[in-house]
């Protein structure tokens, strides 16, 4: 039972980080109608920038600058490429983002080389314990930060002018334009927000219990894709639920791997995708997705 609770806590904290990434994915889709595969490299860029900069300018400034760099990269991708391809087929745009992703990723791998980069989290690698239930401090802080960010995001999405402009554009772009809403601006802002969320997730994903910054952090972002898809690609609430579901499933599969040994070692790495496929079989547009994703 304690193991179960422990795994559940770990799963939720991991899931909260997936939810951050998935939220970015969803708002980009909603505002630009792009399935953005650039998220993996954006995440790695965030982690890399924070790790590299903390040596010279200290941890906190490095976090701030790292988040800014990631947001700027997302902004540039939107302005330079996505905005100019407005109206292109969804598939072409998705492939374009894969191309952009590969370019950034390749450069980052070259930069990282054989270095072992660590983000010097001031909270270190200790665990936080209540009775016999343990959670790494990094994950605990991650959960708190993610919860605050997610709450702030949903509040902004619901009440702010940006949120209303965003939801109006997502529902009916042409009519939103007729109301004087600038879609380019809405979309650029969505990319910036997605970049920030990805960088924050990166900050925690490269800490305990996962080791330092390496290209494997990229694979973590890949696991946030099924979170977005199974929640429903156009549902922010779905991204949250999907993220938590994937996080918990992954933590459970990792924790009980001895019992799951008949499925092979490292089963937890594929669990997110299995959960996604299982959900989509019964609900093709995801848990909370709109039935038709195409706009008329």
């Amino acid at each position: 039972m304690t193991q179960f609770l422990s795994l559940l806590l770990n799963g939720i904290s991991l899931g909260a980080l997936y939810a951050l990434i998935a939220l970015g994915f969803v708002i980009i889709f909603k505002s630009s109608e792009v399935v953005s595969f650039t998220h993996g490299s954006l995440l790695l860029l965030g982690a890399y920038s924070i790790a590299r900069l903390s040596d010279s300018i200290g941890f906190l400034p490095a976090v701030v600058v790292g988040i800014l760099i990631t947001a700027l990269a997302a902004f540039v991708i939107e302005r330079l490429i996505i905005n100019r391809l407005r109206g292109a087929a969804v598939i072409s745009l998705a492939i374009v983002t894969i191309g952009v992703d590969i370019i950034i990723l390749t450069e980052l791998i070259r930069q990282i080389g054989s270095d072992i980069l660590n983000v010097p989290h001031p909270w270190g690698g200790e665990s936080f314990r209540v009775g016999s239930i343990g959670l790494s401090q990094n994950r605990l802080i991650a959960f708190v930060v993610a919860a605050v960010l997610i709450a702030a995001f949903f509040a902004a999405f619901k009440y702010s002018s940006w949120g209303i402009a965003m939801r109006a554009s997502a529902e009916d772009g042409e009519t939103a334009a007729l109301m004087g809403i600038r879609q380019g601006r809405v979309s650029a802002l969505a990319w910036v927000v997605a970049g920030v969320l990805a960088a924050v997730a990166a900050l925690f994903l490269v800490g305990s219990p996962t080791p330092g910054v390496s290209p494997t952090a990229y694979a973590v972002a890949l696991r946030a894709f099924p979170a977005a898809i199974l929640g429903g690609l156009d549902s922010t609430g779905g991204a949250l639920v999907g993220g938590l579901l994937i996080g918990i499933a992954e933590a459970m599969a990792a924790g009980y791997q001895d019992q799951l040994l008949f499925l092979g070692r490292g089963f937890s790495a594929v669990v997110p995708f299995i959960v996604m496929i299982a959900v989509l079989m019964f609900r093709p547009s995801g848990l909370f997705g709109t039935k038709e994703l195409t706009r008329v």
Partner: protein
Amino acid sequence: MLSIDALHVTYGGAVQAVRGVSMEVPDGKVVAVLGSNGAGKTTLLRTISGTLRLHRGKVESGSVTFDGADLVSRDPAQAVRLGLVQVPEGRRIFGRLTVEENLRAGGMGNRDKAAKSKAQDRVYDMFPVLKERSSQRGALLSGGEQQMLAIGRALMASPKLLLLDEPSLGLAPRIIGQIGEVIAEINRQGTSVLLVEQNATMALGVADLAYVLDVGEVSLSGDARQLSQTDEVQRLYLGHDGGGEAGERRVRVPSGKKLSRWTA
């Protein structure tokens, strides 16, 4: 004042949707544009509101100006800022947003906070039902209420000229009558209106001036009341079998050709 001069618009470089249309919407007036499907009414509105490009349409020649500012190369947000706001055909309210959020979305192009809150008071004043239902999702409103919301949403931008694309579409006759009254009231409060309609009875009842479009060209134009007396408008748009002669016509017929009855 909105002024359109010898406007030619094509889609995809091939389909000529508007061919040499000239028209004027003087300040403080209601101008109706009548015509059947495919007459070019919606294309005309798209050109004015700057959404033509979204439909791969192109202005080949001619000009559209509003208070002297050229509209042809502007995007919709710029048109809104100039004071031109369109209520799209089929209402197109944001169904997943609440009524209040729909109105806020309508006010996005309006930077002036005081003007925005004044506009909101005016909208709630004009359509009390929207205030009652302000926290409901737009999709839950009835067709007539949705049209009220679509008009109210456009008014949030405090337009100088309101463009209405077939506001009577799919509504019950009683509601259409109300829409006519609403348009008259909006105009009385100082907003010019360009009303595109297939429902000629309502449109000619509320308009000062009217134009009839036929396959991309203006076939008739003039004073709305006089126009409604003409044989052709009576026959084609008002559903009467006109007994009068063409000689009774008191309006200008630019093309000089007769309207042909459409099929469909």
